[in-house]
């Protein structure tokens, strides 16, 4: 670890915190339906969309209608991606002549993108046409991100409203989020990325003759426009197989730094939106503080482990940390930092291969996802995931003093706690259950790339990543098999929607409650005690759930590595 390394980390955190407030202000205006400086340009488009699709923007929806609208929207998104992948061979924008994608891989990829997971069982440049990348994947990158954000906003409205039956209008929220938040940022961002060196072309792959006379086919494409929303929307699905490690997806130290920022900004800003909507920005900062504590701890461990290198490297006298699966322009610190950010945030883009991380360095991304990606989290998903943990923490605090718990003026009662538990418990059920199947079912065992405990970690990571809708991978695992295409798709589906529906039920139930004024007996939720309590609840629930599985994977691998064992 170096001073320059830590300075990069500190600078990163400082900029995220600095952007939280202005973006939170802007997003609050967007979701309250107020005018913004972009309204003169965007308002006619927005009104036109409502007109042709028959949406009455004044009419708000009950939480169940809101949820059904969201689900219908996803059915359509699924059909578009699946159809494009199956038919891409006969559709335009296919200069590389990619053939139709198989049924199970198309199914997996369609589920993967509508759930904001972007698991890559496909290898972008070797499988997909430009049309599939643009209309299938780029568009769903926008819409699944917008969905995550508006669901968080709906839950926030649940807290901020009193005695109301509705939580907003899904169609209006998703349109405004796409037009006013995601699209304008992406337009500027795309141009920045092209300036840094990311291609943006519809031309065919380039045939080059290298200095030594060999032939090299260089894959290009409309990359920058997809990378922009892939990072901003914490989607993470790469244009290329190597994702953000590919020099065309992340060419420079600056592009890398901005990509890391863009993973966190919207998620962090949502904590401020929360604070503003419930009428006290300190409530938002308290939640961001919980996230910050967990984040910095993760970065510290991961950076230390990667800078330390592996026992094999030490034995050969190699210094400079574990560079296997990392790029020189990023080095140890920017690779470790990126890995922690992308898994804290449900993004899943990678700029280094997590499979080649040291045992402990690779365990941090795994833990981040298993905690539910609540450290800033996926755009929106992190916020509603974190609010579920807050409800539990408040409930535990209430039990200690024997008083009905309250949070930002709402009584937290049996229904909310039950729903929060349901949402939190369904995740380990998926990833632990499927991992158990994956390590004994012969067809699944054959997919492991590494032997020993590392192979187990590959399987655990795959199902954890799918359930958490992260999409990063211990990529040695051969995921493009019938078994993994179907089981991972089921994990992604359950991990997304079985968390969303209970969260929306909480939103509906909270919105209908009266607001109770804070009294002397109210537990203050803006101070250090609250932050410590939530961190504690997260770590206890997380630790109890997945520590045994970690002991079988990365922990035993770390011990084996230090004992000089290889597999």
């Amino acid at each position: 670890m170096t001073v320059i390394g830590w300075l990069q980390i500190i600078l990163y955190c400082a900029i995220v915190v600095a952007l939280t407030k202005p973006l939170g202000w802007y997003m609050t205006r967007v979701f309250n339906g107020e005018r913004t400086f972009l309204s003169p340009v965007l308002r006619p488009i927005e009104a036109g969309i409502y007109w042709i699709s028959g949406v009455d923007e004044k009419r708000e929806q009950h939480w169940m209608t809101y949820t059904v609208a969201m689900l219908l929207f996803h059915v359509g998104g699924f059909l578009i991606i699946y159809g494009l992948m199956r038919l891409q061979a006969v559709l335009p924008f296919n200069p590389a002549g990619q053939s139709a994608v198989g049924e199970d891989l198309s199914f997996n990829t369609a589920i993967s993108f509508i759930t904001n997971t972007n698991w890559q069982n496909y290898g972008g440049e070797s499988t997909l046409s430009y049309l599939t990348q643009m209309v299938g994947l780029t568009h769903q990158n926008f819409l699944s991100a917008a969905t995550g954000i508006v669901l968080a906003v709906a839950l926030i409205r649940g807290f901020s409203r009193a005695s109301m039956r509705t939580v907003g209008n899904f169609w209006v929220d998703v349109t405004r989020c796409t037009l006013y938040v995601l699209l304008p940022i992406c337009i500027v961002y795309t141009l920045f990325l092209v300036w840094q060196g990311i291609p943006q072309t519809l031309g065919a792959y380039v045939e080059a003759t290298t200095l030594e006379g060999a032939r090299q086919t260089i894959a290009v494409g409309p990359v920058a426009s997809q990378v922009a929303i892939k990072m901003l929307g914490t989607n993470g699905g790469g244009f290329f197989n190597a994702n953000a490690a590919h020099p065309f997806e992340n060419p420079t130290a600056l592009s890398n730094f901005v990509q890391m920022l863009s993973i966190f900004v919207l998620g962090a800003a949502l904590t401020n939106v929360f604070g503003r909507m419930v009428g006290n920005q300190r409530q938002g900062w308290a939640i961001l503080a919980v996230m910050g504590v967990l984040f910095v701890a993760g970065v510290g461990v991961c950076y230390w482990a990667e800078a330390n290198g592996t026992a094999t490297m030490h034995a050969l006298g190699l210094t400079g940390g574990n560079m296997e699966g990392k790029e020189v322009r990023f080095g140890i610190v920017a690779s470790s930092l990126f890995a922690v950010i992308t898994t804290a945030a449900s993004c899943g883009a990678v700029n280094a291969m997590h499979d080649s991380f040291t045992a402990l360095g690779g365990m941090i991304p795994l833990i981040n996802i298993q905690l539910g990606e609540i450290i800033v989290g996926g755009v929106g998903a992190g916020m509603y995931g974190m609010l579920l943990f807050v409800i539990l923490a408040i409930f535990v605090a209430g039990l200690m003093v024997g008083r009905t718990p309250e949070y930002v003026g709402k009584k937290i009662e049996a229904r909310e706690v039950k729903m929060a538990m349901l949402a939190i418990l369904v995740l380990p059920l998926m990833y632990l259950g499927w991992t158990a199947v994956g390590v004994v079912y012969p067809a699944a065992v054959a997919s492991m790339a590494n032997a020993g405990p590392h192979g187990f970690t590959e399987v655990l990571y795959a199902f954890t990543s799918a359930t958490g809708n992260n999409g990063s991978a211990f990529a040695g695992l051969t995921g493009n098999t019938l078994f993994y295409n179907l089981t991972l798709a089921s994990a992604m589906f359950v991990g997304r929607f079985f968390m969303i529906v209970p969260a929306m039920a909480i939103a509906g139930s909270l919105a209908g409650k009266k607001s109770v004024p804070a009294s002397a007996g109210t537990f203050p939720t803006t101070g250090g005690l609250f932050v410590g309590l939530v961190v504690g609840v997260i770590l206890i629930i997380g630790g109890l759930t997945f520590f045994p599985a970690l002991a079988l994977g990365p922990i035993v691998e770390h011990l084996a590595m230090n004992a000089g064992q290889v597999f």
Partner: protein
Amino acid sequence: MLREIRPAIVLLLALTAITGLAYPLAMTAIAGTLFPVQAQGSLIEKDGKVIGSALIGQEFKDDKYFHGRPSATVAPDPNDSTKTVPAPYNAANSGGSNLGPTSKALADRLKEDVDKLRSENPNAAVPVDLVTTSASGLDPNISPEAAQFQVPRVAKARNLPEDQVKQLVTANTEGRLLGLLGEPRVNVLALNLALDRMAAK
């Protein structure tokens, strides 16, 4: 609930048209005008022929060139399409080795490469990036140490004084952005092109 069906279809199609077609196509047009070189992939031409991209590494085996990092990229096996064969720096199929810290295959490969490099230059410590594969398999850079490590071999193969080659490496070393972001590095293709130009003089 039924009245949600129409927006589910029409609004989805409208937003698809905006974000999936209008946005990427407009960006392609604008970016192609503002940054024509980068938009096409930062290609380098020599005598009218494309010799590669400034951002994409390529394989160097000749002693008279600086070598890049090992690459783990593969290509489909021409004899059996279900299998793959090693194809270093395959820019149409990026990827890493994905070998873990306790992998025997990785330990063996590291040892073999370290031994080979030690025999080539016994006077310097072997830089770690010169024996580890990159994440993309297309890393265009090596560390300045890895470039300096190869100076004796390149100078000997080209009959150039070592100092001169060393200076060329230093001149082609890029530092951190603002002294802070990223890592010091040398672009292997750019260095080798400069080397060819120097030798031609």
